[in-house]
């Protein structure tokens, strides 16, 4: 570092104590064991989120929300704006990969029991980030205002209407009226570009802060290992460079997907046209959609759809609160039940997703 650089550094350090932060970072380590590969998926999710933010801002430069302008502006972006096609395709592909990465990250944390004390709130914030990612996906899907998005949103929001008493009113609030219209588009747009990013950033900040404070979770088996047998690598630069390497590979995968499989725009939404055959939600909602489809009209005097919704809500809350009811792992015992539940959930989601694609 040159003399000028040092002066600059000292100027900042005098005011913001960055030397102590660097000191902290240089001592930060990452546990190194056979399951360490799963540590990368949090970083991958973060990288894809950053891509979403950057490409989302670029799309906002040309996207104009409205029944008469959404589709047209997206068409303009992909056909007229320089590299617009690339930005739009990367935004769509990255959104899907991000949700996939978040799911992988969640299950890896679950199966390695990394949620246990003292990281309960890291898990809770992580679960909330998953829910908000899904909401991001659902709201963003409608924004091009194409046929597929229109009907998928129509079918998706209809589920809300099955909630007794408040369902109809809630549906009207979500849609901004009786049906999916320009009003729905406007509020989904607001949700996608203002409300969700705001909330998401705060929760993401907390999530990352917790990780920085507590460091990465060590495997439960390590508690019985003598300290000298525990292996660590420095976070900076070793782990960060590995992270960077993976991010570069993912960036390349994104570019290949965007060029070879550009995200189609399809036909403009026509509310008066009949729904095209085989309308399905995005893959990450398919397991829920398929479950609701397979449920009978009535389950124990409750509407089938509402019953399904109830089950998913209760299961989601239980899943979010797993660090609080898994007391066995907390006490240092192996809790096989947690593994079985996790396996069941994973197999159930995979089976229902596959069925969703295979059945009509």
């Amino acid at each position, binding site marked *: 570092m040159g003399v000028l650089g040092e002066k600059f550094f000292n100027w900042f350090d005098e005011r913001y104590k960055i030397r102590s932060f660097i000191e902290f970072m240089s001592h930060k380590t990452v546990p190194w064991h056979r399951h360490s590969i799963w540590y990368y998926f949090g970083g991958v999710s973060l990288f894809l989120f950053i891509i979403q933010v950057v490409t989302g801002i670029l799309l906002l430069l040309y996207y104009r929300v409205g029944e008469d302008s959404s589709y047209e502006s997206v*068409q303009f972006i*992909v*056909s007229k704006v320089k590299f617009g*096609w*690339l930005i739009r395709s990367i935004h769509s592909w990255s959104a899907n990969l991000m949700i996939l990465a978040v799911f992988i990250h969640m299950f890896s944390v679950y199966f390695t029991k990394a949620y246990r004390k003292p990281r309960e709130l890291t898990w809770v914030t992580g679960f909330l980030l998953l829910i908000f990612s899904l909401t991001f996906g659902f709201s963003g899907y409608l924004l091009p205002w194409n046929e597929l998005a229109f009907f998928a949103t129509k079918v998706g929001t209809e589920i809300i209407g099955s909630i007794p008493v408040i369902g109809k009113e809630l549906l009207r609030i979500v849609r901004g009226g009786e049906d999916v219209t320009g009003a729905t588009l406007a509020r989904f747009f607001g949700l996608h570009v203002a409300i969700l990013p705001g909330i998401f950033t705060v929760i993401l900040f907390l999530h990352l802060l917790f990780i920085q404070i507590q460091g990465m979770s060590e495997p439960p088996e390590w508690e019985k290992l003598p300290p000298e047998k525990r292996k660590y*690598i*420095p976070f900076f*630069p*070793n782990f960060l*460079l*590995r992270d*960077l*390497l993976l991010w*570069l*590979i993912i*960036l*390349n995968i994104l*570019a*290949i997907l965007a*060029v070879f499989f*550009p995200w189609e*725009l399809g036909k403009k939404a026509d509310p008066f046209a009949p729904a095209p055959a085989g309308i399905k939600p995005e893959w990450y909602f398919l397991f829920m959609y398929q479950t609701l489809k397979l449920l009978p009209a009535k389950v124990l005097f409750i509407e089938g759809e509402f019953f399904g919704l109830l089950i998913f809500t209760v299961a989601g809350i239980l899943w979010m609160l797993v660090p609080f009811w898994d007391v066995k792992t907390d006490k240092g015992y192996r809790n096989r039940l947690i593994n079985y539940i996790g396996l069941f959930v994973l197999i159930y989601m995979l089976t229902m997703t596959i069925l969703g694609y295979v059945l009509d």
Partner: protein
Amino acid sequence: MKKFVILAIVLFTLTFALSQGKDGCYNCHKDAVGDKATELYPKDVHFKLGVSCADCHGGDKTSDDMEVAMSKGKGFIGIPKGDKIIDVCLKCHSNEMVMKKFGSNIDVNQFKLFKASVHGKSEIATCVTCHGVHNIKKVNDPTSPVYPTSEVRLCSKCHSDANYMKKFNPALPTDQFEKYKTSVHGQRILKGDTKVATCSDCHSAHDIFPANDPRSTVFASTLPKTCARCHSDANYMRDYKIPTDQYEKYAQSVHGKALLEKGDLSAPACNDCHGNHGAIPPGVKSISHVCGICHALNAEMFSRSPHAEVFEKRNIPQCEVCHGNHLIERPTDEMLGISTKSTCIKCHREGEKGFEVAKQMRDMIDTLVMRTNRAKAILDEAEFKGMDVSDARYDMNDVPQILIKARTVIHTANLDEFKETIAPGYEIIDRVTKAGLDAIDEYYFRRWGLGMSTLIITILVIALYFKIKQIERKK
């Protein structure tokens, strides 16, 4: 044999004359009253067949007492009016058995047909309106009011009376008879030719419907067949020495296919070119006017072309010279130019201005068509490669319209006007072709770009990998 036939006729007449001799009604009305009915009736076809007054009017023909003969108790109805007239006629004319007894093969469904027809209300017409009363003759009897030479005048009694017709259909023209007299049919019938078409030949006799009723024999899509009944019958038309293949040709023409196959009622039938009541072949000078009723722009353009004056001087049938008459096919670009299939070379020879104009026009159309097809193929390729060329496709929608306009402007035979019309087509195609080629270039640019970025990223990944290894080795 001849003697036998004469004897039979004499015996037949004598028998019925004797039978009428017993008819109290006839005898009394003839001798004592001396009315017009009994004066006319002996000439009536029914009188000859032995149909008595009482058969229509009711009553007892055997009684000499007037009170008895004309009493209601004996079924006397007096002079039937309105629907009663039809009831009287139907007593026999709706019963096949009765008609056979009289040796008649007349269709017993006439009334049913008549009732459903436009005339089928008694306040408009009954049987006697056309066939007369007490003096009814066979249709083929020249003294019958419905005999071909008389029928036209019979129908015109009502149909030429504007005041009378207003009561039933104020919109219906009343000049049919006047027009008919100007037609070939009318002129011939006035000379006594009973083979030509009269009102009932086209409109039918009892089941007449308005021309816009699909049941009518003169409904647009039925009319060609109605005309063809005579005009396609070579034997029937032999004396007139005119072709009999018009219907056959028309059915294959663009007009015939539109009307008869597609049911497009706006397509012309025979009457749209030849007229209906005043049917006559259009004269050489009026062809473009007749065609111009529908093809107004073409006719206007032709009228200001150098062809118009020359054709008129040389008595050349305008549109027909290139397009034909009954067998008018969809015009193709081959009709234009200097190839063997071209109609231009019928008159124009190499070295003439017209020859050169035809050649250039054809070349320019062919070039635009060819470049349009090429542009389409380029857009298809771009789309196949996943590129968005919807704007260029939209732009291309104007080209067929320009081609239609250019093909119309041909009728002016004015090369400058033609060039002015077709030029925007070339401009559009140039733009579209460029957009398509740019899209294909963009496709390859994207792949090259991807290749380059992948290369850079891969180099970075490898460099990073070695850097990590280096750092980890140091530790």
